[in-house]
């Protein structure tokens, strides 16, 4: 009820934008999963299905000049930031046309030029330092950008959480940390390994403000993130936002997640963000056909991305030693 009223502050267009982003994320992930299952991809992939609303809401609050870091579960961030699904998919395929020329793969998509995307990362917690460092750079240079570090619940147990948030707080860095709490780190339910109901609340230890929001409601996330971004941008220092979300699949694509009680998925499906927002939009007068249209456009877009990735060439084997060093690459790699 409360939520509904709140949403009336926002235009249909904005909500449709959320919806479109969420559908595009899910569709990208479904395509990636299918390619994985068919053996078209190498390695593992980690899917954002169930976390779309949080990602759509959060990234709507992020300005073009802002920066962000991502994690192993990072496809959704790329889509939400307006990245190119073709190049993202190509990276998953290990193709030369991918964001990282096939050198990084799913866990390492970065786009430092257009998206200000400082990279997904395979090391849990590594983005905490990198995002704080980017914020430090902004502070030193005096630009107007905020850096958003996106990461999962379980990464908050790495020591870097403590070290970097303490520094960011002391130095009042323009930093926002966005925690997508899907309650699991691989198989480990977060409350089995932490002592408090929420994670963002740890920010209080550094006198940093925080918010905990329903990550299946893009508007709630958008509002919290807007507050956080304003706070950080105005020179008041960091802010932590925690969005409670669901991870539909297991940890990686193909993980049966037998470690999870059945209720988890029941709750997840009962709170499916795309369905909920779809209903809301229809309540607001949007035709089902329009929503279907969004879905089929996403299908077509992601079919195209798969086709692009599939048809793209692999890197040439000779490229294997390129890009290690900016200066004197050949000698540094030679011996």
């Amino acid at each position, binding site marked *: 009820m409360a939520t509904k009223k709140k949403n009336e502050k926002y235009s249909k267009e904005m909500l449709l934008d959320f919806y479109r982003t969420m559908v595009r994320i899910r569709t990208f992930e479904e395509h990636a999963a299918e390619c994985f299952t068919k053996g078209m991809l190498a390695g593992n992939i980690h899917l954002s299905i169930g976390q779309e609303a949080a990602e759509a809401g959060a990234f709507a609050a992020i300005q073009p000049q802002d920066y962000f870091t991502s994690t192993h579960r990072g496809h959704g961030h790329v889509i939400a930031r307006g990245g190119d699904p073709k190049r993202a998919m190509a990276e998953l395929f*290990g193709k030369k046309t991918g964001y990282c020329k*096939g050198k990084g793969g799913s866990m390492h998509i970065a786009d430092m030029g257009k998206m200000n995307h400082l990279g997904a990362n395979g090391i849990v917690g590594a983005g905490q330092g990198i995002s704080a460092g980017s914020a430090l750079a902004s502070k030193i240079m005096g630009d107007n950008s905020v850096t958003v570090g996106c990461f999962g619940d379980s990464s908050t147990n790495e*020591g870097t959480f403590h070290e970097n948030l303490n520094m960011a707080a002391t130095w009042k860095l323009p930093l926002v940390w966005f925690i997508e709490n899907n309650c699991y780190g*691989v198989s*480990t339910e977060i409350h089995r390994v932490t002592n408090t109901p929420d994670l963002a609340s740890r920010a209080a230890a550094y006198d940093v403000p925080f918010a905990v929001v329903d990550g299946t409601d893009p508007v709630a996330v958008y509002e919290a993130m807007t507050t956080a971004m304003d706070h950080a941008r105005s020179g008041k220092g960091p802010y932590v936002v925690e969005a409670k979300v669901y991870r539909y699949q297991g940890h990686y694509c193909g993980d049966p997640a037998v470690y999870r009680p059945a209720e988890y998925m029941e709750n997840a499906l009962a709170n499916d963000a795309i369905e909920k927002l779809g209903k809301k939009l229809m309540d607001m007068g949007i035709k089902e056909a329009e929503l279907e249209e969004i879905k089929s456009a996403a299908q077509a877009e992601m079919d195209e991305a798969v086709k692009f990735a599939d048809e793209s060439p692999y890197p040439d084997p000779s490229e*294997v030693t390129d890009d290690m060093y900016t200066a004197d690459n050949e000698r540094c790699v030679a011996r």
Partner: protein
Amino acid sequence: MSKKITVSKAIREGLLEEMRRDDKMFIMGEDMAVMGNVFAITTGFLDEFGPNRVIDTPISEEGFLGMAVGAAMRGMHPCVELMYDDFVTVCADPLFNQAAKLKYMSGGQCSIPLVLRMPMGSGRRNAGQHSQSLEGMVCHFPGLKVVAPCSAADAKGLIKSALRDPDPVVVFEHKLLYAKKEEIPEDEDYLVPIGKANVKREGKDLTIITWSREVNFSMEAAEKLAAEGIDVEVLDLRTLVPIDWEAIKASIAKTHNAIIVSEEVKRGSYAGEISAQIAEELFDELDAPVERVCGLNIVSPFSPVLEDQNFPHPDDIVKAVKRVLNK
């Protein structure tokens, strides 16, 4: 009497048997209890031994490895898993400055009977932060023992020896070996001693010194070479620290030629250490330069076409052998 099981199953058996015989032993790591490990190494352990002895940790590697050191100082026998050896970077201090050093620095007052299992190796398309072979780095820190088995039997036998050893032992397990099914003795007390290499194949022309998954590739290369009339000896080190120098010496005294094969980044590799030792002590035995066949001096790339160039395949080994033998 023997049976056929996978390498991961063999490790599981080793851990299980030791958990049953040694009530000071406990297991600690990410996803070790409820899930029973991402490679199913500890399924069922939680039920049998309870949450005090099979511990799911948060993602706090420096923290829990530090705790394992403290528990070991108190006489416990922690067996810790790091999900990938690449993550040793987030817990290097408890390993290199604590576990390795506290015995010596305290004048011998304590032992640190800690086992650290680290899945390693490339070939799984896991990209640069999940594909490294960091045994060289670990071997550089005195105070640690290091093993790197290539077979189910060795994996079980070495892990059991590691768990009974009073010193910290790092076990490198190649992820692409886990699913391999192999013969292994039924004997409950089958141990492979730490510090003993294994002549996997006798030969007279050249010694291939290797360990872990590259043993298998070296055996394949040996077959190919045999077909061409080149008879190589394959020496599986199994233990890297302490190294079985007698075995290396004996083999090179026979073959007068050697290559060293590992998946490591070549620069600064343990393969280089072995080569340097051979240069120092067996120079006069050598008919030709010792070559290393290793990874490139790069970050492990994701794309299969690139990654496949970054660790030695049997053909690379064949070529190196021929180069050294001038054939």
